[in-house]
């Protein structure tokens, strides 16, 4: 998409900015929550269910396997989903804004 020569008035409204920030923040917070829940839950599980977390899985303890190996792919998945959605969101916003501008 090429940059328009003059920016449409619609995007200078407070409503547009508020919607823009709200949509992006909503997506960011949703992704952050997945990640924060895992970061908060793992120490809690270690704390309250030590025997369960100490069971052997492929030679590791369950807790070691999660923190030392599985955590990395988990974060990659979150970031992959975020990037895809976030870029799609930007494209949609840009299209909506230029359409609004054309209507006026």
């Amino acid at each position, binding site marked *: 998409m090429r940059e328009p020569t003059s920016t449409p008035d619609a995007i200078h409204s407070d409503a547009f900015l508020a919607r823009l920030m709200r949509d992006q923040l909503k997506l960011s917070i949703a992704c952050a929550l997945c990640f924060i829940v895992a970061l908060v839950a793992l120490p809690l599980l270690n704390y309250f269910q*030590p025997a369960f977390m100490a069971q052997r899985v492929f030679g590791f303890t369950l807790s070691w396997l999660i923190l030392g190996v599985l955590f990395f792919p988990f974060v990659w998945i979150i*970031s992959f989903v975020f*990037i895809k959605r976030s*870029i799609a969101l*930007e494209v949609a916003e840009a299209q909506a804004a230029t359409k609004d501008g054309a209507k006026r």
Partner: protein
Amino acid sequence: MSLPLASLFLAELGKVDPWIAICSLATVFVTVGMGFWSAGKSKNAGDFFVAGRSVSVGWNASAISGEYLSAASFMGVAGMVMATGYDALWYPVCYACGYLFLLLFIAGPLRRFGAYTIPDFAEGRYDSPLFRKIAVCFVLFIGFFYTMPQMKGAGTTLAYIFPGLPYWAGVVVVGAVITLNVSLGGMKGITLVQAFQYWLKVFAITVPIFVLASIVGHYEDHVSANKTAFETAASAPANIERKALPAKAPKDEQWISPFGKLTTKAVDASIAAAPTPEAKAALEANKKPFSLLYTYSLIIALVCGTAGLPHILVRFYTNPDGVAAKRTTMWVMILIGVFYVFPPVYGVIGRSLTPELYDAVGAKGTDKVVLELPTLLAGKNHALLGSVLSGITCAGAFAAFMSTFSGLLVSMTGALAHDVYGRMLKPDSTPEQRLRAFKWAAVIIGAVSILLGMQVEALEINFMVGQAFAIAAASYFPLLFMSVWWRGMTMPGAAAGMLGGGVSALLAITMTSISDVAAAGAKKITDVAQLAAFWQDHPVAKSLGDMWVAHPLARILCEQPAIWAVPLSITLMIVVSKATAAKVPGDIRMKMLVLHAPEALGLKQEYIKEHEGLSH
């Protein structure tokens, strides 16, 4: 390199394993060579400060990763896993995951704003030259804090590779090489070098461990050689070799399970000093909850600290646009995630095969397990293989502190040349003058770093890195996060939060380090009368030490301040901004729009317009 140093170097070379010497020297020469090569390609100020804003996603992701994986990651993480076990796994995980925070909340908007440096952003967002000065001071402050451990890593590694070479020689050699590179090629030159060094580090950490594991047994087998508290015997396959652990090493059950030595240190010290069995029992009951608290505070410090390190942030400006900035962060997470799986493997296998390292401390102890482990193969009829592999890990260690230091040097030089010279001292300077200023600033900062690096031989690498992270977490992270997402933020609010959080975290950490340094000194004294005299000479450290023993919770909160310092900083920002609401910049809507609107809308404006002079 000066002549006496060179001759000393050559004399030492004869005594060293030729493979180690060749690999280390090759790393240095390739780094210098790439610096000269890229010098021809870096022409204007934009190339030097932000690599012409045209670094592709692949290069930039490799370069950020190369910059990020420091000596602490390459050697320190393995050493800590070996020394303290499970709890140390939080370090690599949070180092890697802190990037997610960057990606979700900061990367895109920051790039879209189009500033050169963090101080540019600070001034641009709040229209306040004063705030630029405050931000410059913080960039330099955190930068030097993080530089010192890198320098220490350089000094100790070189002294390890070439026994007999003094500590300062390593600091000078590495400092001089990187300073030369930065002043020759600036950001553009360093991007190339760092990208190369990322791949070198990944190669150096993976290849030796794969070879080693295929000979001495795999990661999971060595983990299973440690029995948990719920098992009666270890379940490792019979062919896994394990040497007897010295008395200083943590026991299996402690090492493999969460809430071990790392997090219970403070309470353990109090229990040891408790006068009555009842008092001991009461403290024992607190042990686990306090460990949990320590773990959470550590997580917050590492995750938020990663998102706030200035030398990482400055790289986002080298992306062509906000979408590229986001894609870059995604790749960085994959690249450093792949890397961080491996250092703990060295720690685990090192616990089985090189337990003698537990008896020494710091650079001579578990910290060098990455360098030490490949040499074991020599004892298993693979002498040549062992030499080649330890040569490779040494090259990786070199790449580690060289690339992180070059990143720090670029960001600090940028702050000095662009913000101090270009904006404060000589606002009407021409691009040529600013380019010359960049080169001079690189030399000045490089020299100061070398001098500082020579002073810190006695301090621990991981400890210094932890301090830098905690301070960044309580100052820069809240500043960036709140500035990007809250339009009601004012300059006094931002400054109060950043300084309040950063300074209180610094004070808390300094209090623990004063008593720790004194305690380390006291440990060396065996004579009772001398010991009493020593403590008399250090009254502050003594009273601090007594206070920690009496209040282990206070000790934990001061050692890991992030859990209260980050909320403190954010609260200060909100309260002070509300009180000074009249000072919200008048064109705040436009600023927010630039931060958040998709670039396709054509709002993108480079904050610094190189070709239009510096009037705005």
